[in-house]
């Protein structure tokens, strides 16, 4: 066994003999796609062979290769050229070269090491790698990024060999034909292709296969063609070759010819080090990698989250966020808090996910935060001139950057709004707090926006724009519902109070009266009269209790005595039971106030006074009710310990929200002024409406 292993082991490499490697490429030496491939091959060989490497290359013009006369001429030329000093290994860097070098072996005695694809095999004295292009991977990634796409435009050239790419793609993607329609744009000149891709149906996908030659025999650089086609295209352009990335394509499952030749070079080194060709054979490798261009993703608003797992995103730009990080963060913090309040758990979950992503990549984090906020951001100078902008989705822009960049707010925006913006810029200069402007625009419908303007430095200002239509609508709905709740609750309380009063308490009163009458009738035994008097008294008490319940539900005083006396009665009772001094002053209150206005102010007084006795520790309270110029103003002022009027929790605890809603329902406003240790002042202003005359 040990002997066998020894004999199978390669002979130790001779460190002095030079190894001649001839690499044959399919295209011009200076073709951009080949420069990297050539360099990678040479580097890998040098790594394996060091100083022993004697490297030479031949470039065969692919566009002329099928011509048998050209082929045999090239073959004759190469044999002649290397007759004196034949290579130790020939490297065929692509399947086209494999075919050329094996059909009529170029150097029959020299081992051929190759990079090929499935279906193209070399002769017996050969070893190498089989690396297939994953055309399908690019298309499925494109369909993940654009799930609604229905049309795929395959853009290819018509130089020899180019049709092969198209055939392979169609074969690999046959099952997708039920999902999308393939349209071929091949054989056209570059200007004709550009014209075709300029007006594609919405949501199309362009699959760029490479254009080296057209039907009229013109040749192009596949890389330069990628650039001009992508620039002209109205739909995202995807590709399959790593060399296209950075030249306009969004990306895809990119085939790495560099990786292919690196693997091939390793095989060549092993061959040169004495390993047997048969032992090395043909090994299948995968040189595909999902790779995308950040600039193109941004151009087409493709979310990185829609890319296949493990995708590499290159060409990241320093983001707007990188440049204005500090200022943006300040604004974002406020907005993020608001967003969280509004959208609750959903947003939290999304943010957590974004936050997790952010840990992986700082740049990704920045852009993720930006994406999380549906904002437009602009940097303007003191004159309101647009210096820079960030937009998550260009569709959010009402005016395109070409039209506003370098111009001023006054030139771009409606005059009134521009005036507001310029005023805000004036105000915010030299401050740290942002100025917030809310404004409405009549677009397809009335939409609400909010802009926060804050200074970046003395000369530049950041404007963060957020559409708040949805949250405004939610708030309006919330208010409407709160209003309805208050109204229906009051209606219900009033109904029950009436029921208690009219039907139960009245009848009990009658019962008490009748029992009382019986009790004093002459001729009845004395014992019976005493018992009847007691029953009358019980019935009366029960009636009284019911009246009190009814009153608590809905104040009878308000209806029967009016607002002034009802508030006065309430204050008197409270002062008695809670031992607090309450001064009540009133003047100018109309005699016949609309019941809802009266009820609103009564409830505000009730709520505010209950807060005073429960929480403030006040010893002196003043309640004022004054009618002036069609407005009724109710003020409740105390000398208690006060609270933080800005804290939302206090608002909830003190029922301020419901007070505010009541006042708003009556068309008025509520102001609460308070600070810790400084007492509280609640002021409700409600327009006077008189009761409809009877």
């Amino acid at each position, binding site marked *: 066994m040990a002997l066998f292993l020894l004999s199978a082991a390669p002979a130790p490499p001779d460190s002095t003999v030079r190894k001649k490697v001839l690499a044959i490429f399919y295209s011009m030496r200076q073709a951009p796609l080949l420069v990297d491939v050539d360099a990678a091959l040479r580097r890998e060989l040098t790594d394996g062979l060091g100083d022993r490497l004697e490297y030479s290359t031949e470039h065969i013009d692919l566009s002329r290769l099928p011509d048998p006369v050209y082929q045999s001429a090239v073959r004759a030329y190469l044999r002649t050229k290397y007759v004196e000093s034949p290579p130790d290994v020939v490297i065929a860097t692509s399947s086209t070269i494999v075919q050329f070098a094996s059909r009529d072996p170029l150097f029959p005695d020299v081992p051929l090491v190759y990079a090929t694809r499935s279906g193209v095999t070399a002769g017996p004295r050969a070893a190498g790698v089989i690396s297939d292009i994953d055309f399908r991977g690019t298309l499925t990634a494109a369909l993940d990024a654009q799930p609604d796409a229905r049309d795929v435009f395959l853009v290819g050239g018509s130089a020899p060999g180019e049709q092969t790419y198209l055939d392979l793609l169609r074969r690999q993607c046959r099952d997708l034909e039920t999902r999308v329609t393939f349209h071929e744009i091949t054989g056209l000149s570059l200007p004709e292709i550009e014209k075709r891709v300029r007006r594609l149906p919405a949501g199309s996908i362009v699959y760029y296969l490479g254009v080296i030659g057209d039907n009229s025999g013109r040749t192009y650089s596949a890389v330069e063609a990628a650039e001009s086609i992508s620039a002209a295209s109205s739909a995202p352009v995807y590709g399959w070759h790593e060399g296209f990335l950075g030249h306009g394509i969004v990306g895809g499952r990119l085939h790495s010819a560099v990786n292919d030749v690196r693997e091939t070079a390793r095989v060549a080194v092993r061959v040169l080090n004495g390993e047997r060709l048969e032992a090395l054979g043909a090994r299948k490798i995968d040189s595909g990698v999902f790779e995308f261009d950040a600039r193109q993703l941004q151009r087409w608003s493709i979310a990185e989250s829609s890319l296949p797992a493990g995708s590499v995103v290159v060409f990241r730009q320093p983001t707007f966020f990188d440049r204005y990080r500090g200022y943006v963060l300040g604004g974002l913090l406020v907005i993020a808090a608001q967003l969280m309040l509004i959208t609750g758990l959903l947003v939290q979950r999304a943010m957590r996910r974004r936050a997790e992503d952010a840990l992986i990549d700082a740049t990704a984090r920045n852009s993720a935060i930006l994406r999380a906020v549906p904002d437009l951001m602009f940097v303007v100078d003191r004159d309101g001139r647009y210096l820079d902008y960030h937009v998550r989705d260009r569709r959010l822009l009402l005016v395109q950057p070409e039209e506003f960049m370098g111009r001023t707010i006054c030139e771009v925006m409606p005059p009134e709004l521009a005036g507001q913006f310029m005023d805000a810029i004036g105000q915010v200069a030299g401050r740290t707090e942002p100025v917030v402007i809310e404004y409405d625009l009549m677009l397809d419908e009335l939409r609400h926006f909010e802009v926060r303007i804050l200074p970046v430095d003395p000369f530049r200002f950041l404007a963060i724009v957020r559409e708040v239509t949805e949250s405004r609508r939610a708030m309006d709905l919330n208010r409407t519902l709160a209003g309805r709740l208050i109204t229906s609750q009051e209606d219900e309380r009033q109904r029950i109070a009436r029921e208690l*009063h*009219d039907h139960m*308490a*009245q*009848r*009990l*009163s*009658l019962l*008490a*009266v*009748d029992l*009382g*009458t019986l*009790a*004093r009738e002459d001729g009845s035994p004395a014992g019976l009269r005493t018992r009847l*008097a007691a029953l*009358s*008294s019980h*019935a*009366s*008490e029960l*009636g*009284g209790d019911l*009246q009190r319940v009814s*009153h608590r539900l809905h104040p*009878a*005083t308000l*209806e*029967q*005595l009016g607002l002034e*006396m*009802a508030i*006065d*009665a309430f204050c*008197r009772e409270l002062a008695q039971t809670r031992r607090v001094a309450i001064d009540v002053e009133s003047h100018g209150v109309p005699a016949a106030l609309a019941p809802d206005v009266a009820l609103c102010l009564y409830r505000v007084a009730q709520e505010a006074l209950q807060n005073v006795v429960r929480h403030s520790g006040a010893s002196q309270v003043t309640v004022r009710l004054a009618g002036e110029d069609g407005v009724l103003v109710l003020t409740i002022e105390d000398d208690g310990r006060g609270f933080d009027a800005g804290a939302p929790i206090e608002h909830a605890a003190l029922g301020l929200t419901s007070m505010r809603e009541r006042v708003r329902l009556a068309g008025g406003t509520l102001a609460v002024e308070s600070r810790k240790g400084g007492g509280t002042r609640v002021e409700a202003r409600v327009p006077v409406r008189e009761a409809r005359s*009877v």
Partner: protein
Amino acid sequence: MSGPALPRRPRVLLADDYAPLLVSWRRILDPSCDVVDAVGDGREVLAAARTHAPDVVVLDIAMPEVNGLVACRELKASYPGIGVVLVSAFDDAAFQQAANAAGAAAFVVKSVAADELERAIDHAFSGTSAFRAFTRPPR
């Protein structure tokens, strides 16, 4: 009817929107008073007062259309010599004050015993300007 002898029985007008109570009151008052009419709301009271020229009007405060307080003010304005007894289901200081302010001579809690109502009518009929409240004693 107890108390000092009066030259004649008081002419009494009753007003309450709860009809069964009017029947009971009438039964209580018949021995001592002339109940000239019993009506169901404040507006009718004014017309009935014109027709019957009562000495005393017993008025419930909580009545539809024109309430007892408003009717009381109007009665006193038209017939300053008329005695008004205001009645409420609520034994509440605010109602007593309101009754006093409206010019009533007496305030009576609705469920009060029969003799309290008689005393209140007597008080109103006496022509005094002093206001008195007749309520159930506190429990």
